[in-house]
């Protein structure tokens, strides 16, 4: 049913009909967005001292409530909101994962024990970097609680993204997710100019990508006369001719989404933004945006454009190979930990694209498993990065990590586990994820793509292992950073991500069963 389109056509003839909304199906998203609205009110009416506890309670209570609401929908397989949203197994798993990652991300963002001046966000975003104002605000111990409003809206957008079932809803979700993130990226407490530059770049390029998406969406609507995925799919099956139009349309829509997942050659924002943004936010963003955007890309390609598989699969082949190799090769020469992880996340996006290219149930399941595994590991990586510090804040230069294994063996061991997972070494979640994605691609006949992916993994192994070697097989120097002792927030997030990384490596079966039982996207 192309509900919105029929509504548009019906405008002249029939009076406006109230859409029927099943609030149970919408509950997860509504809870979080509603909490976002409440959060605005908190900012407006609560005294300064009460805001942080209130906001934190609101965030965690609403996220947990949203998680319960998602679990409550277990087994549901229908569309909601007049067909604008698809509530199905894969969508719910991705939504649930976004919520869990959001909880971990919120834990990282709530951390105030690492920086002597407070959390990772600027005391006042409005003050000029390096100004007397800034000094004053910092000295008085100011901090911003508006970040939680932004955070909740971003999470709401992320939850909407993988279940959006028409082009308009997808675009709205994309923007609801992105706009708060652009702002948050510019709010780092330290190295603020770098952070603001990153935010601006992210915003401008994000807007540019949105334009691609929107233009492509318009062309798709022009071709099919429908904005709903089901309508597009059916018109692709029935209509012939207009080849150029549909190919350009697909290319532009996909390009918009490839920007969000950080695929080459739409990746260049990632290193700058990862490096500039406040580290807890980077961790959250790197993990959650990837899940949401991959969810959207998968749904768009599998549901709306499933009939065009033979057109878009070879194109994604090229993108996947480019992404893997550019990510892996450029990571080799990075000297900043956050930039290196940014390139690593680009390479990882290339690996996940293998599951997308497979265009099969196995590919979908493999991609979802990989996304979940990758998300937890990424949260852990950035949790550790936020803890490794010197007198100037986080010590992200690689040389400062030399000999960290001697000084802080436990944290270095955890980081090693994360590096092993990202490399794809057995007994970690990363291995299982790679294994399933590669298997799915191989089963779909993409033999050479798998070989390329294995080669790219080999190259990637070099820079992951280099960190391990640096930490454990190099003598500590004067320059070596120290590991700050975090409060319970980061500790919980780190423990959870490390546990999941190892557990999914040893007992992947329960999650695999869950994903496989979830079935495929509703059409």
């Amino acid at each position: 049913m192309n509900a919105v389109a029929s509504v548009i056509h019906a405008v002249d003839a029939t009076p406006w009909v109230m859409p029927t909304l099943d609030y149970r199906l919408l509950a997860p998203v509504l809870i979080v967005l509603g909490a976002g609205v409440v959060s605005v009110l908190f900012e407006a009416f609560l005294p300064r001292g009460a805001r942080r506890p209130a906001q934190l309670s609101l965030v965690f209570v609403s996220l947990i409530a949203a998680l319960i609401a998602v679990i409550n929908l277990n087994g549901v397989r229908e569309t909601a909101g007049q067909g604008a949203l698809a509530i199905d197994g894969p969508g719910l798993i991705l939504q649930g994962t976004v919520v869990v990652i959001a909880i971990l991300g919120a834990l990282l963002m709530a951390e105030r024990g690492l920086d002597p001046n407070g959390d990772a966000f600027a005391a006042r975003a409005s003050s000029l970097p390096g100004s007397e104002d800034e000094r004053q605000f910092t000295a008085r111990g100011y901090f911003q609680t508006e970040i939680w409003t932004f955070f909740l809206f971003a999470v709401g957008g992320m939850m909407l993204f993988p279940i959006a079932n028409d082009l308009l809803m997808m675009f709205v979700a994309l923007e609801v997710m992105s706009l708060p993130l652009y702002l948050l990226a510019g709010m780092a407490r330290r190295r603020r100019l770098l952070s603001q530059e990153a935010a601006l770049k992210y915003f401008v390029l994000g807007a540019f990508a949105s334009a691609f998406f929107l233009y492509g969406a318009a062309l798709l609507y022009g071709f099919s006369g429908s904005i709903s995925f089901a309508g597009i799919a059916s018109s692709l099956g029935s209509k012939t001719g207009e080849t150029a139009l549909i190919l350009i349309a697909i290319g532009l829509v996909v390009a918009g989404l490839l920007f969000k997942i950080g695929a080459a050659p739409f990746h260049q924002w990632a290193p700058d933004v990862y490096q500039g943004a406040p580290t807890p936010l980077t961790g959250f963003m790197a993990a959650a945006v990837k899940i949401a955007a991959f969810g959207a890309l998968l749904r768009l390609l599998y549901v709306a454009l499933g009939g065009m598989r033979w057109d878009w699969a070879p194109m994604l082949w090229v993108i996947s190979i480019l992404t893997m190799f550019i990510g892996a090769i450029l990571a080799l020469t990075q000297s900043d930990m956050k930039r290196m992880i940014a390139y690593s996340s680009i390479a990882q996006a290339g690996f996940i694209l293998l599951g997308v290219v497979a265009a099969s149930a196995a590919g979908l399941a493999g991609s979802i498993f990989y996304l979940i595994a990758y998300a937890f590991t990424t949260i852990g990586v950035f949790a550790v990065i936020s803890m490794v510090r010197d007198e100037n804040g986080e010590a992200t230069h690689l040389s400062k990590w030399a000999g960290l294994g001697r000084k802080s063996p436990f944290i270095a061991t955890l980081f090693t586990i994360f590096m092993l997972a990202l490399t794809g070494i057995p007994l970690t979640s990363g291995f299982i994820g790679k294994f399933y994605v590669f298997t799915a691609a191989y089963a779909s006949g993409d033999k050479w793509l798998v070989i390329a992916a294995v080669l790219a993994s080999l190259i990637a192994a070099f820079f992951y292992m280099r960190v391990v070697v640096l930490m454990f097989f190099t003598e500590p120097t004067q320059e070596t950073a120290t590991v700050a002792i975090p409060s319970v927030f980061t500790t919980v997030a780190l423990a959870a991500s490390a546990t999941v990384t190892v557990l999914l490596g040893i007992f992947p079966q329960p999650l695999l069963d869950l994903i496989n039982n979830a079935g495929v996207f509703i059409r």
Partner: protein
Amino acid sequence: MQEVMPATGVFSLLWLLIALPLAGAAILLFSGRKTNKWGPYLGVFTVFVDAVIAIWMLIAMMGNGSEQRTFSQNEFSWMFAGNFKVDMAFQLDQLSMVFVLLITIVGTLIHVYSLGYMSHDPDKRKFFGYLNLFVAAMLLLVLANNYLLLYVGWEGVGLASFLLISFWQIKPTAAAAGKKAFIINRVGDVGLSLAIMVMFVTFGSVGFDEVFGSTGQASEGTLTAIGLLLLLAACGKSAQFPLQAWLLDAMEGPTPVSALIHAATMVTAGVYLITRSNPIFDAATWAATAVVVIGVITMFMGAIIGSAKDDIKKSLAGSTMSQIGYMVLAAGLGPIGYVFAIFHLLTHGVFKAGLFLGAGSVMHGMNDNVNMRRYGALRTAMIVTYATFIIGTLSIMGIPPFSGFWSKDSIIHAAFESNTLVGILTIIAAAITGFYMTRMAAMTFFGKARWEDGVHPHESPKVMTIPLIILAVGSTFMGMALLFWGNIETWLEPVVGIKKEEIGIPDWLLMTITLVLVLAGAAYGWIQYARREVPIVAPRGNWLTRAAREDLYGDAVNNTLVVQPSFWLSRFLVWFDGSWIDGFVNGSAAFFGGLSARLRPYQSGFIRSYALSMVGGAVLVVLALVLVRLS
């Protein structure tokens, strides 16, 4: 056929025999300094309780008829893979019973002795932990009801042996000796693991009952292969030619270790393995013959080395090799000899433990000097040690009525039953035994004092001498007790079988000839080392003495045949790794690194170039779609 009984009553404690010392080892090794004070006593206690349980089991076993003395206890299924199934199951029969008694009783005595011997060692707790670990592994070895479980115990005793030889690892020699023992043992272990694999392929099982019950289905070639592989394993563990070189170096370990592991128990595991596998060797004649040949060669090598060494422990180690050679050759004789191999193993376990502990007691009084040329005239200084050592000496020489006489005489008799040449060789070796043991006793306790300055020999404390006395009593009466009262032949017969042959000469004549030759050897030793002055610096000696001092060039042979070729191979591999593999790896790393450096400038930091790249990307995406459609 033996009936297999369920392990009820005291036999339900079978698992406890292994679990007790294992728990002791775990507590001692993992608990840290807190247990330093009482840890060693815990170590003694676990083995002592084991010994009590073992004696209780013996009594219970003797209450059953001879066909109802095999008890089996299945703990749990250990591993499955396809049709490969192994249980964690223990089996106690007459053969394992005597081993359990030897291990636990001699083990207890040596643990007690160690309380005194190691009293000043800072790592005493660790030492007792390792000793407990050894006892647990050795008991697992003899109680396993299948080869794979036996292999676990086999590796376990190897590990304990390694840890204890290099117990004083700050000494480079001790560390090297531990490594040497471990590496040479690996060669034998490979034999055992291959034998287990061949068994599984041939019989579809590695359980004793299944393998022995179906030897008829296998070809003689297969059985010979299994037998030779088992022999290789036995050579490694029991220091038989050609894997004998580690035992002499193993004397770097503390003396109680030499007594327990490298004389009484572990080194006899090879004899246990061959005897336990008797149905295989009975069906594989060639393998059995090989066992005899190996035994004879080692019997002489050990005796010759023992005759030339001035280091009291190494001389005893040579003697151990030689005596185990006796046991191995007896085991190779088949049903004629199995019983006597075990008989000699038991008496040897007791008198050689006594001799080693005696040597330890002497060293204790001589500032840990092991050079017999600096001993002499110690009989008055340490009277208990002297008396017990002499009893041990008489026993090993085979002088009636001491224990060794009965067991060695049985082996000589059995050898004559099988083959006159082997019989004659065993008598000659017995004569050499007489020589080197007299030499050892004479150099240590008789003649003139050749002590180093500042040495004041003294008797050891009671905690050390009482075990010596108990072992001396065993060395005296155990042979008679086992033969006449314990009836070892009928005791073991259900497990290993027994066969008697007539020999050409009367028993009394054979016994007399043997005794005369032994006494002649002893007399020569006495004249050389008690009547004449013993020079402090060893004379050059004839070629045989020089060769024996070099362990009959065992190390040189290993060095030429194995070590040097290994070096060449590893040098080649290092070269290949360095120039080819590393070349490839480094080359590709340099390639990608260079590529990375060339690509980096494109990440310029300018939004305009990023946007351009995105436009290019969009064009690329559309182009790819179009190209696919066109092709």
